[in-house]
């Protein structure tokens, strides 16, 4: 069917995007896996030989070499940020799943029922979704500020002797940032569920109500299961967004991660932009992120492409 010229066109239409995606997404992702088994400062070349063959002498930089699983071992045993980061990423995910997502879903359900002013509510609640996380970090500093801030002033804890250091205290700052992050995430989830609710066949709901189910039962037993595709999208978005969390921490910490705000994504970045680059170690942390993210990604791909195979 295709002429020679058409075939060339197809080759270009597929080839150029594929080349970009391979060169700047998949090759880096796979290279992370390889580099995670090496030790390399980025200075000098990378050799495919075990590190034991390069004696390290003070003052002489060791070239890149194969390091086995040492990076992973160091990460879980001696790297002080690792376990706090894992814990904080897990908390981030839990807050998104237990608070931001149900809140967003509730907003969507109420707006979908068409209560008075629902258009305005919708516009207000998703406004934060449009804002950059950098901006969100900056404007929330006014809310959390020590002496002048909105919260401390309102609750009367703005004197130098009794103030609450929301962003500096390592026991509080993660939670303070999670409020900011949820403020944005709930609006995102709301928008997704609004679309999901509109895709549910209204006769399903009617039938359930006619059968005597109350609205609560109708939602959980009929509407919610019918939104399965959206539920999966929301789940994927939630997990990925909590693994990607970075901007808020960077802005709030002014570039130097504060104690209490360690995250895997931040740790990866610190190992490449710092003065001493630890390419292998940073990659190992990246691979850990990769492995975790492959779980929701696989679920999404399975759900999405399963039917197309048939």
């Amino acid at each position: 069917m295709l002429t020679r010229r058409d075939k060339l066109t197809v080759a270009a239409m597929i080839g150029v995007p594929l080349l970009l995606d391979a060169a700047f997404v998949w090759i880096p992702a796979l290279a992370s896996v390889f580099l995670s088994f090496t030790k390399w400062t980025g200075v000098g070349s990378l050799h495919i030989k075990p590190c034991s063959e390069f004696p390290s002498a003070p003052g002489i930089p060791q070239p890149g070499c194969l390091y086995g699983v040492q990076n992973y071992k160091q990460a879980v045993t001696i790297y002080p940020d690792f376990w706090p980061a894992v814990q904080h990423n897990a908390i981030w995910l839990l807050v998104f799943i237990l608070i931001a997502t149900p809140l967003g879903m509730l907003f969507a359900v109420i707006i979908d029922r068409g209560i008075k002013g629902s258009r305005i509510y919708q516009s207000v609640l998703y406004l934060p979704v449009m804002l950059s996380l950098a901006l969100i970090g900056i404007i929330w500093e006014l809310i959390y500020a020590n002496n002048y801030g909105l919260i401390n002033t309102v609750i009367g804890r703005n004197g130098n002797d009794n103030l609450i250091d929301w962003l500096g205290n390592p026991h509080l700052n993660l939670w303070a940032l999670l409020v900011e992050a949820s403020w944005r995430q709930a609006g995102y989830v709301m928008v997704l569920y609004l679309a999901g609710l509109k895709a549910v066949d209204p006769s399903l709901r009617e039938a359930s109500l006619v059968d005597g189910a109350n609205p609560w039962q109708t939602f959980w037993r009929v509407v919610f299961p019918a939104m399965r595709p959206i539920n999966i999208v929301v789940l994927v978005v939630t997990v990925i967004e909590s693994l990607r969390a970075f901007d808020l921490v960077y802005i709030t910490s002014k570039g130097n991660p504060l104690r209490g705000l360690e995250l895997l994504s931040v740790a990866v970045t610190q190992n490449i932009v710092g003065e001493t680059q630890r390419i292998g170690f940073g990659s190992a942390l990246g691979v850990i992120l990769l492995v975790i993210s492959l779980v929701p990604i696989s679920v999404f791909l399975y759900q999405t492409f399963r039917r197309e195979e048939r």
Partner: protein
Amino acid sequence: MAVTTVSTAELAPRAHPVRGRRWRPGSAAAQLFMIVMAVLWLTPIVFSFYIALRPKSETDRLGYVSLPHHLTLQNFTDAWTQSDMWRFFLNSVYVTVPAVIVTLFLASCFAYAVSRLSLRFNIPLLILFTAGNLLPQQVLITPLYRIYLAIHLPVWMTGSGLLYNSILGLIVINTSFQLGFCVFVLSNYMKTIPREMDEAAIMDGASLWTRFWRLTLPMCRPALAALATLLTTWIYNDFFWAITLISTGNKRPITSALANLQGQFVTNQNMITAAALLAAIPTLVVYLLLQKQFIAGLTLGSTKG
């Protein structure tokens, strides 16, 4: 299989409740809840405007939570004149405009090829693109950083002589990274366009390119408009790529430059806030004018029946 893409009209809230209802305590509670939430949601934004409009000397004396004596735009003009804000904005334009156009063009090409032609590797290719877009950026950054340092380009192209620390580098990574999402959305959208159209055009002897460019692409206008709005916001709001792949402060686009301004104006929170709000103007314009497009873009990829 039916693929439903949500049109912008469907996204508006229902004008009428599903069933006619009497007044019930439930709706009053819902109304109250939504009012409280809307107020809570607006507080940070309104509060930040309020602080940005007041001189630092006044808030230093009275705190942020106090009645205003002076309301002035001084912080905004100071933020603008005391930094290279115009340059940061220009950088954002140089990155965002080409990145959005190239991404949409390449994604349309790719989506057309995999959704219209029966190629053997259609599904694996789509999976590759979709999955790539879902990876956390930090998974890619370490090798990407080395790749960017290793790619040498003529100085007239990038200024730095490398892909690292260049506007071109940011265009490339934003394009590559966003391709996956756009391919996914557009290929689903194109599948809803009847194949008969294509077949009729083949009878008329139209080339593949003509069928794509003249026939299919114009029919994808709603999806392209929604994606363009979404991509513009996302790329404009990008922080991570610019922080890690640009080392020179004055080459940064505005969103990531906020981190520099934060350092520069460190003693004047009112001015930092004013700068941040200035940086948000383009997104606020999108919010006011293209709300529906933005929401449609977010939901286009997610509703498949």
